[in-house]
């Protein structure tokens, strides 16, 4: 790149965002667009395959555009597998997980952020430190505990052990710390109890936080695989990811069927993302990563 050209570009006033490499705007746009096409292609391909015919695919006879649309692939998913049941299980587990997790995280987050008590710091550090522990580390005794409780193949077995979410508590504490203490102190002087303060003052100010917690927790529970794989052995109790794995095992080369199933499983999450995009991004920024 010519030095003179760079200098000219640097001296040019009135930009609104930091300037980095001096590629021309068209080149930058083209690079970004090519990247976006590469990123979008797999999902497009999922859709095209889901609507295609496996016979054509196996023969390697396909183009980038869909041929005759075969909606019956989606019907086949419901005909051959208890897909509706799995969908329902996923919804119940994700919703129950969200309600339980968000509730207990909010109240614990409030205590950690705004109340003083002995052991606060060490307990908080202990909780946050569990972020590094994958389920594979603790799964053996964890499964034993769940089995002893009789929770194998139940919703509880999936929901309860994952109900305390360190990320959620972390989000809550970060957010609540931004709420002025004066506000809470004033309410205390007026004789309000902590639960009342939480309900009447803190929560109404925390709608963005609650939105973020609900969306992220839902996503984590909806997509979760390793733990349900261990707890759910009976095909009637499967969630969608476990069901998809079963489908993959049964029809490993029936790509149209596989893609139709995958598409049905990811569609709700994609829709939620598109509708609530703002909160996904806000949540990341809010967690103190800026």
């Amino acid at each position, binding site marked *: 790149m010519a030095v003179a050209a760079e200098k000219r570009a640097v001296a040019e006033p009135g930009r609104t965002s930091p300037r980095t*490499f001096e590629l021309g705007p068209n080149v930058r746009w083209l690079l970004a667009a090519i990247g976006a096409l590469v990123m979008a292609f797999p999902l497009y391909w999922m859709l095209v395959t889901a609507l295609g015919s496996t016979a054509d695919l196996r023969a390697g006879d396909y183009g980038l555009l869909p041929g005759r649309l075969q909606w019956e692939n989606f019907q086949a998913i419901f005909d051959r597998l208890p897909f509706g049941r799995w969908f329902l299980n996923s919804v119940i587990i994700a919703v129950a997980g969200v309600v339980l997790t968000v509730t207990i995280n909010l109240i614990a987050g409030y205590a950690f952020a705004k109340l003083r008590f002995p052991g606060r710091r060490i307990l908080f550090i202990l909780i946050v430190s569990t972020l590094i*522990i994958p389920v594979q580390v603790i799964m053996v005794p964890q499964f034993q505990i769940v089995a002893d409780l009789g929770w194998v193949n139940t919703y509880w077995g999936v929901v309860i052990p994952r109900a305390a979410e360190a990320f959620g508590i972390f989000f809550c504490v970060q957010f609540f710390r931004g709420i002025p203490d004066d506000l809470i102190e004033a309410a205390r002087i007026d004789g309000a109890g902590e639960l009342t303060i939480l309900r009447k003052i803190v929560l109404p100010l925390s709608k963005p936080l609650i939105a973020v917690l609900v969306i992220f927790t839902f996503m984590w529970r909806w997509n979760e695989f390793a733990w349900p794989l261990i707890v759910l052995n009976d095909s009637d109790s499967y969630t969608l990811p476990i069901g998809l794995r079963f489908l993959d095992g049964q029809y490993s080369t029936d790509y149209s069927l596989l893609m139709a199933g995958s598409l049905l499983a990811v569609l709700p999450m994609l829709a939620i993302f598109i509708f609530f995009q703002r909160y996904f991004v806000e949540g990341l920024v809010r967690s103190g990563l800026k």
Partner: protein
Amino acid sequence: MAVTTTRPRSAVPRRRWGRASHRQALTAYALISPNLLVFGAFMFLPLILTFVVSMQETSGLGPAEWVGLGNYSELIRDSVFWRALANTVGYAAIEVPLALGAGLMVALLLNRAIWMRNLMRTVYYLPVVISGVAAGILAGWIFSENIGVANKALELVGIAPVAWRSSAAGAMASVILTSLWINVGFNMVVYLAALQNIPREYYDASAVDGATSVQQFRHITLPSLSTATGFLAIYGVITAFHVFDLVFILTSGGPGNATEVLGTYAYDQAFDTRARGYGAAIGVVLYLILMLALTVQFAFARRHPEEA
């Protein structure tokens, strides 16, 4: 701010807990108790028990037998374990920097107002919300050796097809490429947020001093992103060591053990082979490695106080 609370740490309490604060403490314990209960029963207790179980031999339905460090000495001689360990470290060492670099590049491209910017941001982020299972099944189809679209595309541009499923390198490449697809959007969003926080004046001032854009990038942009990079590196390494869903679905650790990682190997041992103690021992090793990796990264980060 509340963080400055004195901690009752020294032998002589610095602060007397009056009646009001006593009540506040009781309320606090009540509020955190549901969380502590769940964490205690399903996180801390299993974590401790993992160490205990890792010293037992349990096969099938028989009773557990105490073997001390037997599982660990067996691990040391287990070539599959070493392969899984090397694969996990190698996967993290390749995937994390690539995902960071790609995320940064995309963020730089999409930081300025360009046509269809919001749509492109959405597209880059979409794979983040997709389950690892669905991504794995999709990747299995795209990277199918005979009829997959990846090899078709290579064929079109005159490159020999890659053995995505049957060669060790090809299989690992397919796992890493799919991980990149999943993770780039997250890194992009964090970098975009960090870029937006760099004061505009830095660039203006340096431009007045005649700094070139490359100099600005090296001396303003990159240092200002160090907090974000530090966070993403730590988060990326943790996530990379957690890798399970994608590998389990896409390659099942194969061909052979070419893509076996600690997570999948621990699962296989504990729940397929039903060698619970051995699986737990692998879990303990995974835990210790994560602790070690974090300690090292935090030690590095401490050089820049703003990152801690």
